[in-house]
């Protein structure tokens, strides 16, 4: 325990990186998810198929494989493109960016399904009523679709978020100095890997427990208008 306390700053910095990574990827995942859900529900065949290919691809490929492909391959691709077109010089993708983009991209696919299901759960008549009242599509989205979509999406959203937080641990494999990496380093230098890994597990448990409480509160708030049986 004493050694963990000695290394508290290292662990704290790592935790901050992990949390930033989680929130960054979550934001990106929400954007990808909204765009994906809109595409799947649109009338265009092309958009539907693209979004379908996206979710199928992600369901088929583990996140670490995509992360490595993006980190090593994406870098090469960008620089090859830059070399051919001359639009930019050498670009380096750092581990954080690769992590945010790959986790955001992966969970965007899960969010697509979440949001699509939530939008479909809204009775069609309400949207028609909005149109009848003369609302623009944007107003309908803001006043009718969004508040109810959040309500229907929250349980699955909570689940996705908890899986996402755990997925951030993988970024240590490509060398980001996150919680896992820092703890592994500290564990090696003190020869107490078990103590440090256990500390990491406890920190992850705290993060998931806190977000569980927070999201439950949000769930209560957004289902204020729903009668419970």
């Amino acid at each position, binding site marked *: 325990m004493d050694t963990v306390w000695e290394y508290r700053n290292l662990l704290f910095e790592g935790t901050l990186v992990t949390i930033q990574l989680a929130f960054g990827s979550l934001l990106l995942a929400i954007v990808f998810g909204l765009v994906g859900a809109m595409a799947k529900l649109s009338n265009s065949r092309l958009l539907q198929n693209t979004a379908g290919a996206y979710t199928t*691809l992600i*369901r*088929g*490929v*583990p*996140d*670490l*494989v*995509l992360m*490595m*492909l993006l980190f*090593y*391959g994406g*870098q*090469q*691709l960008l620089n090859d493109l830059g070399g051919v077109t001359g639009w930019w010089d050498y670009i380096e993708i750092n581990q954080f960016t690769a992590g945010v983009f790959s986790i955001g991209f992966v969970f965007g696919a899960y969010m697509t399904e979440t949001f699509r299901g939530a939008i479909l759960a809204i009775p069609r008549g309400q949207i028609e009523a909005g149109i009848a009242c003369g609302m623009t599509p944007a107003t309908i989205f803001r006043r009718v679709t969004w508040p109810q979509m959040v309500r229907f999406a929250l349980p699955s959203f909570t689940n996705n978020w*908890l899986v996402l937080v*755990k*997925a*951030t*641990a*993988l970024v*240590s*494999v490509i060398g980001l100095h996150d919680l*896992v990496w820092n703890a*592994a380093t500290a*564990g090696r230098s003190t*020869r*107490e*890997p*078990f*103590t440090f*890994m*256990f500390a*990491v*597990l406890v920190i*992850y*448990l705290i993060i*998931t*427990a806190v977000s569980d409480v927070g999201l439950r509160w949000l769930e209560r708030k957004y289902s204020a208008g729903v009668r419970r049986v």
Partner: protein
Amino acid sequence: MEENGDRTFWEYLTYVSENHSPLDFVLIWDHIDRFLWGTVLTLEITFLALLLGGMLSIPLAIARAYKHPWLNSPIWCFTYFFRGTPLLVQTYLIYYGLAQFDAVRESFLWDPILSSAWWCALIAFTLNTAAYTTEFLRGSIETTPQGEIEAARACGMSPGIAMRRIILPNAFRRALPAYSNEVIFMLHSSVVLSTITLQDILGAGRWLNGRYYLAYEGFITAMVFYMILVFLISRGFKWWEKHWLAHLRQREAEPESGSGKVAV
């Protein structure tokens, strides 16, 4: 390019693949055996863990569903711990962590089991999938219709027989869709193997890229392999669901002629 005529077709293909193709297909083909062995390892550990974890989860789920006075809360702690933390760290804890204790290093378990990455991965994966499976199996045991249990009682079945013949088989059926997700999730999580020195599919890809200093080939090949596996597994589960859940499926309505799309 004058000696083009002397080359065999294979040499020509190698030349094109090395110099003009975005991916060096011939190089991948030369090392395809690595990927096949990787597939064997990935599937071996994934399925052994699913089998052992599944067996472990049945008694745990029953104890949780019936709120066993002393077992319920320790099992809840176990599932909460393993479901709330990343598998990568759980695996590190067992593989790198246990060596910290002299008692473990000197025990009879050390040499054949706890010092080997294969066994440590299997233990971590088994506990992890057992935790997830316990929770959704508990859910499906708890949602057993009361009438089915009453009917079993009325037929004179003891609680044990009712569990074996009525409650568990139906709980398995209801859990099947969630279980197909768990299997795919385990396959995805098995990439953790490559981080503790094991040569799974991703391990083979990382090896190829490291050996030939490449950026795409190994990872893209690994990606294709995983996609094929996931496709086959979800196909298998669809078939299985059709068989096991045939009585729950909605009867397909005959589309009426001329009505166009049927409203759902």
